[in-house]
């Protein structure tokens, strides 16, 4: 069998149904094999977006997302998506074409050392040097991408090798890599110590992250939190893993988190970090982060434990396996939950004193109002993908996610332009779900060519564009911390977004009046095919509250 056909068979053996990508010279054999392969290929308009679509696919479904690109510029265009996937632990496999073996190292046409250039961003990578290895590498790539702490794996296939003839045998045997053995169970002695520390804590907080989503451990988290009156907060990556409508939800923490959540961290005596990595957007000034707390840190990746904040009780394992054990051990202690009453009094006090809020307006659409309208129009049950900036933080604050895998954004790398391509991926993965891309005007212009992909493949994503005419978050920083010296943040003569949508063959709508907004959104959701709604919001609204960069949680402003 031709190696390129064996590549297709290998992908199917891993359960792949959808691939995002663009052909080119070096992956011609791959795309030729695709013709007969019975795989759904979504032809994106830029390789970066193929990568983000694969990420959106993976984040929405939990399955491995796959993207193809050719050699050279095709492959280097993928780099941002690969870096994004490693930061947010997204299970993805990227298959790049490479120039013919004899041209490697000669600066051949469309040659790029993609293996070398992605080394900092991959969980693992392979360059095929013998075509017979292709099935084995694909099998290993999916194993590495999807187990342990998930992440991106790159397989680079030289053009000549994918044309070679090989014996193909499906690989379904368990993968055994000597240097890769993730521990998932969690040390039971450590778990018991954690339960006993928790039983002795009077001001505990559960600080949860994207790891809970990745582990599909939302149920297990709720069980644990319900084993006592435990308060829960989450990072932007973890939103939805604990229901926002739960009475003990404190809201998101971190730079644009709620005061209740951040003050809880500041005053806690025991913080239970679950699948979270103490990013600077969470800790603020590290030396003043949670100064009264001891830390239990549960994570699948041992290298995250004590990387930024030393853990007193480290537990390496998969949240889905560790949390039920911790719940069981904690329940067995039969602790009196009355000890948490004083803590709750304090937490409720902060919640009442510092609720999220904004100044309402009848004349213009406030961005926060737009998120609330979006929540009502989607009945709080859409998959929301987001670009990066103010709109992302407002959505995180105001949408109120009750389920995991409903909030898809670029948290770690903070990639503007992520929203539309990841919405494409999410919609392909979950065709029966309502998928809304909450876009920023600064972000959407970076990847808006993917409207062509939506129209071409009939992918009915709805884009709600929060259009304030600025790169809003950067503008906010320039206003607050750089004496309002605006530098290159005005979007100037933006396109007419309605006409732009129509030019691509999609539907364009516009909303300017707060009274009509929800109705326009409903119309967009009900309309056939992809729709872009240009929502004109107040131009210079700031996203508050916030912890200024490098400040401590207790010094929140706004």
């Amino acid at each position: 069998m031709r190696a390129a056909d064996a590549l297709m068979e290998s992908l199917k053996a891993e359960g792949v149904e959808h691939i995002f990508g663009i052909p080119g010279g070096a992956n011609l054999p791959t795309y030729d094999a695709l013709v007969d392969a019975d795989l759904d290929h979504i032809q994106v308009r830029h390789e970066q977006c193929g990568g983000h679509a694969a990420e959106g696919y993976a984040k929405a479904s939990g399955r491995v997302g796959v993207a193809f690109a050719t050699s050279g510029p095709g492959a280097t265009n993928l780099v941002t998506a690969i870096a994004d996937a490693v930061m947010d632990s997204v299970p993805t496999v990227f298959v790049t074409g490479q120039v013919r073996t004899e041209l490697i190292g000669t600066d051949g046409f469309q040659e790029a050392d993609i293996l070398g250039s992605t080394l900092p961003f991959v969980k693992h990578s392979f360059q095929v040097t013998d075509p017979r290895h292709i099935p084995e590498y694909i099998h290993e790539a999916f194993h590495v991408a999807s187990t342990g702490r998930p992440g991106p794996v790159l397989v680079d296939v030289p053009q000549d090798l994918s044309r070679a003839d090989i014996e193909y045998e499906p690989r379904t045997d368990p993968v055994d890599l000597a240097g890769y053995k993730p521990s998932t169970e969690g040390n039971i002695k450590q778990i018991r110590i954690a339960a006993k520390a928790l039983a002795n804590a009077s001001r505990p907080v559960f600080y949860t992250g994207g790891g809970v989503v990745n582990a599909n451990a939302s149920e297990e988290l709720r069980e644990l939190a319900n084993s006592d009156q435990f308060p829960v907060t989450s990072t932007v990556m973890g939103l939805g893993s604990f229901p926002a409508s739960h009475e003990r939800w404190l809201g998101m923490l971190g730079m644009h988190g709620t005061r209740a959540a951040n003050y809880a961290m500041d005053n806690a005596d025991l913080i239970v970090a679950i699948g979270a990595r103490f990013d600077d957007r969470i800790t603020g000034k590290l030396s003043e982060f949670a100064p009264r707390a001891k830390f239990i840190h549960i994570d699948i990746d041992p290298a995250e434990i004590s990387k930024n904040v030393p853990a007193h009780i480290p537990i390496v394992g998969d949240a889905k396996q560790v949390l039920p054990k911790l719940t069981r051990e904690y329940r067995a202690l039969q602790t009196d939950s009355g000890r948490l009453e004083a803590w709750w009094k304090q937490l409720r006090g902060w919640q009442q004193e510092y609720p999220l809020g904004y100044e309402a307006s009848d004349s213009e659409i406030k961005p926060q109002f737009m998120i609330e309208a979006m929540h009502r129009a989607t009945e709080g049950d859409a998959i929301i993908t987001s670009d990066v900036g103010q709109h992302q933080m407002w959505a995180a604050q105001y949408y109120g996610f009750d389920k995991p895998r409903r909030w898809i954004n670029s948290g770690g790398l903070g990639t503007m332009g992520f929203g539309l391509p990841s919405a494409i991926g999410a919609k392909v993965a979950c065709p029966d779900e309502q998928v809304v891309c909450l876009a920023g005007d600064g972000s959407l212009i970076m990847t808006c060519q993917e409207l062509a992909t939506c129209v071409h493949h009939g992918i009915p994503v709805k884009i709600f564009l929060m259009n304030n005419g600025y790169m809003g978050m950067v503008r906010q920083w320039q206003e607050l911390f750089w004496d309002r010296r605006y530098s290159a943040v005005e979007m100037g003569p933006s396109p007419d977004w309605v006409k732009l949508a129509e030019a691509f063959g999609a539907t364009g709508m516009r909303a300017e009046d707060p009274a009509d907004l929800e109705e326009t959104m409903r119309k967009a959701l009900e309309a056939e095919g992809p729709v872009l709604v240009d929502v004109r919001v107040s131009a210079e609204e700031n996203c508050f509250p916030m912890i200024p960069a490098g400040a401590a949680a207790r010094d929140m402003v706004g």
Partner: protein
Amino acid sequence: MGEPGTPELVKLEDLSVPGALTGRKHVLSILVENKPGVLARIAGLFARRGFNIDTLAVGPTDDPNISRITLTLDGAVHPIDQVTKQLHKLVNVLKIRDMEPEETIAREMALFKVTAAVENRAEIMQFAEIFRSKIVDVSRRTMTIEVTGSAEKVEAFERMIRPHGLVEMVRTGEIAIARGGD
């Protein structure tokens, strides 16, 4: 306290974390798959995490599929635990051993080319003798001496020989093996 059913609770004030820095030199002996790009993965990891390698030696093992990388780094500057955990994330890294100084034999080799006029040669040869090193090349103006031993011994030799006019020096970096039957 890790046993089930024991009634006493863990007092939060009793919980502590060990310091991240050990304050001494560490020798890491790393077994890796002998595949293209493995050294680049390790070097790249050190570069992007800001870990500074003091010395690095790579060579084959008795198994042709496995190479050994021996590297030394300063535990006063780098949290060794974090370094080894990051290294373990590389799929091609099979085993890492943080060598115990008391239980380890570490050696490196160095070549010193020194200016050696005829009248100084006897003295240089005497130094070489004291350090149990070998003179491996002699020219009209220079001598080249091969020194094998611990890094400290090589450094001591360097201090002794430098005043005689050191032309050039090459060091391999340390390799290490555990003492005894282990």
